[in-house]
């Protein structure tokens, strides 16, 4: 892992009125990476970002940029936001409506006493970088949402900050533009090598964009790690359910293997025994009620008419079929289970009311306490 750009140590922030937005949070944000704070609204992710920016003062804790202390409440150190040299893109973009594109982007340079000629050069170069070349004279109110975002990005990058903070920057864009901007931000980050702290509530965005993800809930850190790790080995049910879709099956532990796996008999499917991993399997004993979690893409759907009972499969009936384009989703009723959402291959169509078999496969079957 690269050296850390931002250290957050035991930071707590309570808003007037008693809302505890962030509780005893500690984070290491590696240099030159995209680090994502993700969680449902009110989880404290935006507050964390604002604490790093200096827009909020924590009640306790230490924040350092590299080895410099930016905030240390015990030592009464608080470096103001305007001298932290970070760039930030706000959710609303916060483009100043009384200025042109050039004036918006050039503002930070003007504050830093850069000469007029230099400002013009640097603004042009940065606009080029975000794909807004030649738009200098455009008044801010005439910009589209996507253009506003590019200007906001240019304004945050133009003074070469040490750290770029992005607060839900894509949430106000339409779906197509959002996909495009994600790729562009990722490419831009690769090119500049800047450290990015990115806040989102969108798990797809978090998984696709990040080098590391921190999942937060109710002001507390749930898990930090690379996207693949979090997706495949979530530390708790919250992380599991927040990142991606999950099929949950109720079952009973039949045996605990020496290889770190637990055999679970699925309810309503007598001869289906699944071999599941657990985050910590020592707690499971034979006969215990448990949940088995499987990602939908790890379940194969087989049309059930006219074939015998396959081994280790769960029988069910299709309640509804949703054709999604690249795949088809089926809502399948299974005895003794909540209805399950399963993916089917595009070339294989099962009618509503049809019999199907669900066959879990692969290594990513996890057991959780019920």
């Amino acid at each position: 892992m690269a050296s850390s750009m931002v250290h957050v140590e035991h930071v707590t922030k309570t808003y007037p009125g008693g809302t505890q937005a962030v509780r005893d949070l500690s984070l290491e944000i590696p240099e030159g990476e995209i680090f994502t704070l993700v969680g449902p609204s009110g989880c404290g992710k935006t507050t964390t970002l604002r604490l790093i920016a200096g827009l909020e003062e924590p009640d306790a804790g230490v924040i350092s940029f590299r080895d410099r202390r930016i905030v240390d409440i015990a030592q009464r150190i608080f470096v103001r936001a305007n001298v932290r040299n970070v760039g930030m893109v706000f959710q609303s973009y916060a483009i100043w409506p009384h200025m042109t594109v050039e004036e918006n982007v050039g503002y930070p340079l003007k504050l830093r006493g850069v000469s007029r000629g230099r400002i013009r050069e640097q603004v042009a170069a940065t606009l080029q970088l975000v794909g807004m070349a030649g738009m200098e004279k455009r008044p801010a109110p005439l910009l589209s949402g996507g253009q506003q975002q590019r200007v906001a990005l240019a304004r945050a990058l133009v003074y070469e900050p040490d750290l770029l903070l992005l607060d839900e920057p894509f949430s106000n864009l339409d779906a197509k533009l959002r996909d495009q901007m994600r790729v562009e931000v990722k490419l831009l980050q690769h090119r500049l090598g800047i450290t990015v702290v990115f806040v989102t509530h969108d798990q797809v965005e978090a998984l696709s964009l990040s080098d590391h993800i921190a999942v937060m809930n109710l002001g507390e850190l749930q898990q930090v790690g690379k996207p693949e790790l979090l997706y495949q080995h979530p530390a708790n049910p919250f992380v599991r359910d927040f990142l991606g879709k999950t099929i949950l099956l109720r079952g009973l532990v039949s045996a605990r293997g020496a290889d770190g796996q637990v055999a679970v008999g699925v309810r309503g499917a007598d001869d289906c025994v699944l071999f599941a991993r657990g985050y910590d399997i020592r707690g499971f004993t034979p006969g215990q009620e448990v949940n088995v979690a499987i990602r939908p893409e790890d379940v194969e759907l087989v049309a059930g008419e006219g074939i015998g009972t396959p081994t280790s499969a769960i029988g069910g009936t299709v309640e509804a079929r949703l054709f999604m384009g690249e795949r088809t989703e089926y809502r399948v009723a299974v005895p003794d289970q909540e209805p399950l959402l399963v993916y089917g291959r595009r070339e294989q169509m099962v009618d509503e009311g049809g019999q199907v078999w669900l066959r879990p496969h692969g290594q990513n079957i996890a057991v959780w306490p019920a």
Partner: protein
Amino acid sequence: MALGVARIAAPRFRLEARSALILATVGLLSFVIVYPILILIINSFVITRPWEPPQYGLNAWRFALLDQSMLAAMWNTVQLAAVHQAISLPIAILIAWLIGRTNLPFARGVEFFFWLTFFMPAIPTVQAWILLLDPNYGIINRLLAGLPFFESGPFNIFSFWGMVWMHLVTSTVAIKVMLFAPAFRNLDATTEEASTVSGASVLQTLRRVTVPLLTPTLVTVMVLALVRAFQAVEIELVLGLPINFFVFGSKIYDLTRLAPPDYGAATAMGTYVMLLMVPLIVLHRHLTSRRSFTTVTSAFKPQPVNLGAWRWPAFAFISLTGVTMTVVPVVFLLMGSFMKIYGVFDVPSGVWTTEHWRAVLGDRSFTGLVQNTLYLALGGATLTAVLYTVVAYVLVRWRFTLRSPMDALTWVPAALPGILIALAWFWIFLRTPVLAPLTGSIWALILVSGLSGMTLAVQLMKSSIMQLGTELEESAIVAGGNWITTMRTIVVPLLAPTMVVLWVINFVGAAGNAIMPALLASPASKPLALRQLEYVLAGDLERSSIVGIMVLLLNVGVAVMARTLGFRVGLSRML
């Protein structure tokens, strides 16, 4: 990529500037609101004359609460307000609906009439209508008397119904139209379309869907209108004084003009009216603050209601109403100012003359009046635009212990009739030795001129600041700006349009106000509006019409200029 930061202590300067501004706001609001109220209450118990050493008693209160003429004034106030409000409400709703929700031709154009009416001072308008509706020589009366079925002119402007009429053609209808029209315009059209699809006619939909949906707005406007009705004094003064008809405001004025003046009774009466107003203001504040964040309009474009064959009749009705409120007063006041005897057409030596204009313009005191008016209006508007912007900013952006009581205080001036504020300051200048040098000066007038407009001004500015979004300021700070730079380069430029609007409203208010200077001005600081009131009450209608036209044109000119420059001087955010 050097890390340009150093170890520094907590942002000391910013905290100090902030504390200083908070302290200044708390001090200012306490001084201009709490102090005058206390002064009023205390002096309502003073039974001696202002210049004598004070002795305390209940005489003034006994008189204010029990005297027959005082009770009559209160009853008149309620009666007059009830009648003109009851008439104006349905008319205003109809006009606003036609302007905001139908395919009325030139809707934006006719709305301009009602907007203009808001900026026209009452006294010049009343005087113009005297020319038309005077029982003896009123032009309309004389025309009608010429018809076979009238023995004499049927109208008398110096009457209860004359005052009702004047309220209707000055601001009572106009202000409601200004407030309702945007509400109609922003209404979700699908609710009306659903009603039409269900089989309702246009009028049924208006009655059963549109009006109920707008009920919160209607109630808010009604409360505001009632408060304003209690503050009305000019019309009643000009038309009521000659027939001994008093409302509460004109009674207070009259008590302070008696020889000797009865300040005690005036103060006691003002104090209890102030207390009566409190529930209305609490209600108004409750209604408006509850709705303040829900008025954001959606992007859809409502389909206007098709009036069909009624399009042009409706247009004719609204245009006629608009012309009656704006063009008629200006034309007839101007005409009257060139008459030898105001309103009298059978003068043997000829009706028309420019001698009054020459007399007024040649009067050496005239320059002083104009100067005073400009100082007062410019000074008052500038001072209040700046002060209320700071107050609104502090109230919206910063959390501090007294924030919510201070916010409540900014609503109090809405409950205080202008004459009461003037009366309170009359006492303050008299009783506060530090302020004594200001007594009767133009500075005193400038200071007091913006107070009755405080609620409107602070509310307008607060909603502007709320719409601004903190992120616009935060992004400037993250970009490297300190607090002062952010204020100068981001906040002030973005609030400038609203500041101009406040400036115009306060300019017009200060220039057109005759009542406040009547209690606070000295001969040296007298503005045009007060001089006009004096001329009217003294019966010198010729000179009064000339001075009135000047005030009228000054106000309308400033408002139209602001509008031409692109500033939307509107009140809809008051809702």
